[in-house]
């Protein structure tokens, strides 16, 4: 069996591929749903409805998609530059930690350093400080593996992966210690953000918040950077062929470091947005693996920043819809994760098949035999 690049990739195939993948996914998962003894047709209707079928469904899907967009962008930026950042999870947590460190107050009032400012500016300054702090925290966390890779050749897949564990323990330590909310009855959670910092809701009686807008704007921004700026060209060149980029006079180390900072900052921002948009304070389980999902999303999107938006909404919709469906037809709710996993794999396969043709060469056995 071998792959052969197709001469021309038809638009139909490229855009049809995801739908083919979805069909395959539904077929595979139908077996699992049927195994649990649930009605398959109804289950899928419920899934669709739960993910995209109502205002509430959309609000939930978009809420779930917001942090995914940011971690997806973070991964896409890093992967483009061939920096395999598997550490968005840790960067997210550190960003969230920084956000509550800056914007959290036991009494809910403005922190002392802000109150000396004019009343009107206080909120904005504090908000900006919170966002910047979260982004810097995430950026610095990825800077370490990036520098280790550049200077000492330490594999960043491994270091970013390990840092996830370290950061989670660090957050646990902070929430148990200095940053613990004294009013949280001893439960390990941070003090709550100043209420003014919480992001505005986009819909009544829902959780969608303005972080969604922010994430989408950033996706467009990253796309524009990639496409129109020198830095974008440099990132792509360094990622595709660092040696040639260096020869042409590009500052490879600086570009890698900047890309790392950008990537880490985006993941850190995901943490800020979750705290400011959804929970209001930080706990140890604020992210159900958004960082790892970022890798999935970035790849589904083919590392394209705008694709990240679509992929996030798709994945979030499936998760939300399948979760609701599992409850309604009484199948174990891990079905949601199964569906996302199968969807990811079949999506990857489908886009591959849209670009490549699989050829099975006739194999004749009369002449084969062992060599030597």
């Amino acid at each position, binding site marked *: 069996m071998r792959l052969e690049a197709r001469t021309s990739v038809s638009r139909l195939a490229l855009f049809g591929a995801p739908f083919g993948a979805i069909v395959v996914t539904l077929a595979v998962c139908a077996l699992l749903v049927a195994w649990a003894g649930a009605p398959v047709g109804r289950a899928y209707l419920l899934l669709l409805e739960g993910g995209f079928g109502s205002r509430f469904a959309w609000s939930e899907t978009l809420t779930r998609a917001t942090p995914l967009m940011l971690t997806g962008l973070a991964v896409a930026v890093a992967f483009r530059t061939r920096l395999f950042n598997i550490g968005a999870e840790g960067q997210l947590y550190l960003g969230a930690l920084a956000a509550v460190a800056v914007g959290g107050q036991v009494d809910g009032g403005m922190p002392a350093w802000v109150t000396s400012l004019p009343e009107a500016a206080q909120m904005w300054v504090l908000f900006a400080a919170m966002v910047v702090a979260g982004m810097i925290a995430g950026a610095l966390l990825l800077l370490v593996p990036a520098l280790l890779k550049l200077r000492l050749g330490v594999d960043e897949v491994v270091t970013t992966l390990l840092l996830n564990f370290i950061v989670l323990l660090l957050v646990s330590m902070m929430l148990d210690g200095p940053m613990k909310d004294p009013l949280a009855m001893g439960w390990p959670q941070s003090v709550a953000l100043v209420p003014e910092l919480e992001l505005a809701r986009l819909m009544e009686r829902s959780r969608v918040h303005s972080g969604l807008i922010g994430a989408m704007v950033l996706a467009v921004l990253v796309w524009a950077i990639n496409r129109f*700026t020198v830095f974008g*060209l440099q990132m792509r060149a360094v990622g595709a*062929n660092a040696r040639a980029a260096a020869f042409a*006079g*590009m500052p490879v180390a600086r570009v890698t470091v900047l890309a790392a900072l950008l990537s880490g900052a985006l993941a850190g921002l995901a943490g800020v947005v979750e705290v400011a948009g959804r929970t209001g304070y930080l706990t140890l389980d604020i992210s159900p693996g958004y960082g790892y999902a970022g890798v999935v999303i970035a790849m589904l999107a083919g590392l394209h920043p705008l694709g990240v938006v679509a992929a996030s909404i798709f994945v979030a919709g499936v998760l939300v819809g399948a979760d609701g469906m599992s409850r309604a037809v009484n199948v174990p709710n891990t079905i949601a994760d199964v569906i996302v996993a199968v969807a990811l794999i079949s999506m990857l396969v489908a886009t591959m098949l849209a670009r490549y043709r699989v050829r099975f060469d*006739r194999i004749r056995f009369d002449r084969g035999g*062992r*060599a030597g």
Partner: protein
Amino acid sequence: MSNSPPPVLRLTGITKRFGSLVANDDISLELHRGEVLALLGENGAGKSTLVNILFGHYVADAGTVEIDGAPLPPGQPRAALAAGIGMVHQHFTLADNLSVLDNILIGTESLWRWRQQRGAARARVQEIATRFGLAVDPQARVGALSVGERQRVEIIKALYRGARVLILDEPTAVLTPQEVDSLFGTLAQLIAEGLSVVFISHKLDEVMRVSHRVAVLRGGKLVSTGATSETNKAELAERMVGRRVEMPVRDESRARGEVVAMLDHVSVAANDDHGPLADVSLTLYAGEIVGIAGVSGNGQVALAELMSGIAAPSRGSVTLGGQPLAAVPQKWIAAGVARIPEDRHAQGTVGDLTLWENAITEQLGNRVFVRGGVIRRGAARAFTRDLIQRFDVRGGGAEVAARNLSGGNMQKLILGRALSVRGEQAPRLVVASQPTWGLDIGAVAYVRRQLLEAAARGAAVLLISEDLDELRALADRVAVIHSGHLTDARPTESWTLASLGLAMAGEGHDAIHDNDRMEAIDAA
């Protein structure tokens, strides 16, 4: 016909398409026992494609391959190997981190044995090596071998399996004249033992020397086959290209100008990419081409990287127009140094970027192309279209990814990028490293003309090349590099082929009439 022995190898109606491109168009060929068949053709004519099909790397869209009259299943190198085909690829296929013996042994034993027969294998390798004069240490790590040694390993690989048909895809492209001679010696011996050879080369001298028959491909089609003895170089060249090719030579009356660059007792420390450069001095003048001869792996890379602003001297100084220059590529580019790297795929271009993006990669500080960090795409594209036209870069236009260019066209793109960017302000120094490696004669002629024109416009040119003909045709002065040391640059006419060869082997102290340099070499 029916009573003559069947050909060892017969290709019938081979057709292979890559997308819309027809790389091989209905090609039929025969190879007889004890025969050397030369395959000629421009870059991209389809030579490698044809032999790759024959060996099973590629699968033909149509046509059959027969060995001794029996059909060969398509797409199976195992079957080709079993049928007695050995192939030395255009680009080495050796694992650098493994030993020579491992590279030879792989695939020759059943995978399910619980241990390797290394002792017996080593003895056999030694035997083949001595019999055919292919000296190489079986225990050595391939990554540590010179290019010539790797070539020998590739040939031993084929012989170890008892190949009866040997395919050599541009085996001499990177060899020294001495190594070429020894390779041809081995070939003669093999042919005498009944081996048949398919030999691919761009060097017509070699083709005339070793082959019995010549097949010429052009644009995927077989345009002629015939006995070597019944043709000549000029005719072959014309058939390959479809027109007469004029090889440009230097104008000996060209006068040299002021000093452009000076290397004063410069040393460069070895690193992963290159070996050391030891105490090298050289002066480059405007309007003059200085050639650096030498066997690859003797410090050429270090010298090229030094003069491209990549490597920094560990001792001594490099000055350009009297000013020292830090090892920062941008500064060298800004100072008017046009750089043509040795490896066009790995260093010269970024395959995933489009031609226009590649064309401006050296110009990201130029306000013509970049304003406030934003690329002026219109200007960049216009510039690239102009470059494509002036340098005759064929391959689909400014929006095509550079990886789709053939080697010759990629080289033209790099030349264009290096030589044409400044408009009125021509480059002061051109550093060209192996600029014609692997190019067909049409492209070679083109590149050489560009270098001569640059010199004629007043640039100093540093030409690092292993091709002695090229140096004799272009260089005003030639210096020889050997294990990091450089002889004085002497007028080209004062070198004989013999003295060059000796100097390249690092032995020709008599041939180097310069006591200062002698001491440097002795000290090493």
